[in-house]
């Protein structure tokens, strides 16, 4: 079984961790197109390279970042998520977002 080095707990069996997906910037919902949003939600690049991923150490409830090579599966490094996310994130009011028309209601 593969080992992963948890920044808080040290090397552990990979079975102690839960994968949390690739670290990807979320497009601004208020301004992005539906296609850009769909791209963010549904598509992944799936390239051979080192990717940044979210991993969760289940026994300690700790999220961190791992950099992993998608072909060799080598985990290059792991670190606390604060190294990537240190600023408080705000969402602004969607002034330019039109209220969606609900088809369900329209049909009734």
């Amino acid at each position: 079984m593969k080992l992963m080095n948890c920044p808080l707990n040290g090397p552990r069996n990979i079975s102690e961790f839960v994968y949390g997906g690739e670290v990807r910037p979320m497009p601004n919902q208020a301004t992005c197109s539906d296609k850009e949003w769909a791209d963010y939600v549904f598509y992944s690049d799936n390239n051979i390279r080192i990717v940044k991923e979210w991993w969760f150490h289940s026994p300690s409830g700790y999220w961190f970042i791992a950099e992993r090579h998608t072909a060799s599966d080598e985990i290059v490094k792991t670190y606390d998520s604060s190294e990537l996310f240190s600023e408080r994130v705000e969402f602004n009011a969607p002034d330019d977002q039109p209220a969606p028309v609900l088809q369900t209601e329209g049909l009734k």
Partner: protein
Amino acid sequence: MTALNNDFNLSAASHLRRSVVEVEQQVSPNAGVTISNHTVKARIGFRGKGAIAFLREQGVTIPEKPNQATFSGGFAVLRLSFTEIWLLDIESDSNETFEPKQKSKSEYIAALESAAKNSPDVYRLFCQHSHALFSFNERDKGTLANLFAKICGVDLRESVFPSGSIAQTSVARVNAVVFKQVISEKTERYYLLSDISSSEYLWDALVDAAGEF
């Protein structure tokens, strides 16, 4: 807004606590291992930016790094992350009391819980009720390391896991916090905290694993 009676004390009614595991102690067939159940004893946890400062103010010595434990006065102080500390009433080797001013360990924990309520950035945790606490004593050194090797994927031998070490890991496929106290050159003592709801399952698995010792 309606104000609520905000006096929800987790350390209340200590005399009414019941452990799901009803056994208090189990000695393995060849008397190599004794497993004890401390689930109803007092404990409390705190987390948050202000947790460490608050506990230091209360006179608690905090381990320097995460995943380290200290022992004094029949209590174990566990540092589980940079900002998370648990205090546990563990079995005591002598009759010493933690604080002469306190009547009992239970009252000490209750007093800490009350004191924390008005401290900024201190969040009381729920380990009194969310976790079971078991301890393990061995007759001969190394037995417990071998016992845990049957149920846990972390090397707990003294050379790499000395007294005061904490492993937040998986034991018999449930999440657990394992920590160690070296009692003497001849024996070690292990403690295990795990989810109360799977504690009966885990107790049975532990007793089974101890069967050969």
